[in-house]
């Protein structure tokens, strides 16, 4: 039996002020999967991702990345994951090139390997004309490309994308989709959160829906969407009223 790319068992996260953000979430993402992780704002998606990547400390439960415990063997586990976060968590005065290069440095990549990888990513995400501008001068779409390039600098086998296309124009969204499908085809496991159900429907093969810190539905995309479609299934799962005003 192969080791899953991500296994979360009974994860619970309670913040210092007592807010329960995640309440007993368990899920498994097999290697090579394109996994959609859906839920309304505040459902616990980002917190689950933060616990997986080291930004937050789990209160209880276990998270393994390719069989490696993210708390006990955090250094080894971190090498397997690339994170493209929802917020732009970068030094806004740095240039795209510096941001990507520094991240490669934190991962212990040597200068030559960093340069080669940074060159490739700058070109792949059409950042070459902008690579020496400061991050704060870039448009929203370009900023998204930079954080995605940063997540890919160490070529991680598991890529976690927390709303990667929020605020991105249609053209870039389609470019990103094509790229993500390409790297998934090459074997990279992708966990994607998004509020664009069309995006999830197009890209993901398996879906988990979370609400109020718990997984409320999980399965193959076709199975969850059923005959009414993903949007209705999502609204039912999260307890919201389905929209009866359909065009």
């Amino acid at each position, binding site marked *: 039996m192969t080791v899953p790319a991500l296994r979360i068992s009974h994860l619970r996260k309670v913040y210092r002020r007592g807010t329960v953000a995640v309440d007993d979430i368990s899920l498994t993402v097999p290697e090579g999967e394109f996994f959609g992780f859906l839920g309304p704002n505040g459902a616990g998606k980002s917190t689950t991702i933060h616990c997986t990547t080291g*930004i937050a*400390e789990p209160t209880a439960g276990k998270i393994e990345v390719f069989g490696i415990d993210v708390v006990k063997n955090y250094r080894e586990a971190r090498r397997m994951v690339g994170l493209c976060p929802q917020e732009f968590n970068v030094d806004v005065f740095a240039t795209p090139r510096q941001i990507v290069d520094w991240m490669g*440095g934190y991962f212990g990549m040597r200068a030559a390997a960093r340069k080669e990888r940074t060159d490739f990513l700058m070109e792949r995400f059409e950042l070459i004309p902008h690579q020496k501008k400061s991050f704060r001068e870039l448009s929203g779409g370009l900023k998204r490309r930079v954080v995605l390039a940063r997540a890919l600098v160490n070529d991680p086998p598991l890529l976690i994308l927390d709303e990667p296309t929020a605020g991105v124009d249609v053209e870039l969204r389609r470019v990103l989709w094509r790229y993500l499908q390409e790297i998934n085809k090459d074997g990279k496991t992708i966990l994607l959160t998004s509020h664009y159900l069309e995006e999830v429907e197009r890209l993901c093969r398996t879906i988990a829906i979370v609400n109020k810190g718990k997984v409320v539905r999980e399965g193959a995309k076709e199975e969850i969407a059923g005959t009414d479609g993903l949007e209705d299934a999502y609204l039912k799962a999260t307890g919201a009223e389905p929209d009866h005003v359909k065009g």
Partner: protein
Amino acid sequence: MNWIGLFTIVRREISRMMRVPIQVFVAPWISALLFIFIFGFVVGGRIASIGGHRYLEFVLPGVLLMNIVNAAFLQSSSAIYFARFLHFIEETLVSPLSYVEMILGSLSTVVVRSVLTALGIMIIGLVFDATHIVSILGFLFWVVATSCIFGLLGIIIGLWAKSFEQLNVLTVFFITPLSMVGGVFNTVAMLPPWLRFLDYANPFFYFTNGLRGAMLGLDETPQGLGVGLTLVLLAVLGGTVWRLYSKGYGLRE
């Protein structure tokens, strides 16, 4: 040890420093120049030599120390707070860096900034023929050790602060007043006996005395006492910072 990761922290911080060179380097050099001019010439001209040294030579190690302390504290506190404020501290949290590597990376940058600040002041001192070093090893020890002590304090404040205002608390209420009365401008003998406790109970006095000993060979207390106190402070502050990092205080949600 992830040396490349550690060195990357240093590279990133040096790049940040170089964005504001006037604030980081020129301001302390000008401030030191003014201290040297006012206390060395204007005031110093009226003070007899101390231990065979001109007043300017006596004051220079203290002025140097005050600037090292400020540079070290500002470097680490602003680096950590700025990274927390803009959330790019998360870049290091999601990468395979250990807490020790993160702390050593911050401290290495602190030492780089302190040494560059000190070098500039030493050159200014040379112009006035006031820069002397009698023990290079001792001089390096005091520059690096005091940088690390205030770098570690800066990390603690950078992790604790929730606003830019709070970042200045330690400087305003602790560092500036204690450094001013820590034997920078006077010997203990110049104080009335009932005020001498201000020096003896003040850690800055031992740092100034140590650096002055290494530069002029002039000691008001045994060097061993200052070295011991400094090593104890380094161990306590280093342990505290490591503990805060391993608990994720101010870093992880």
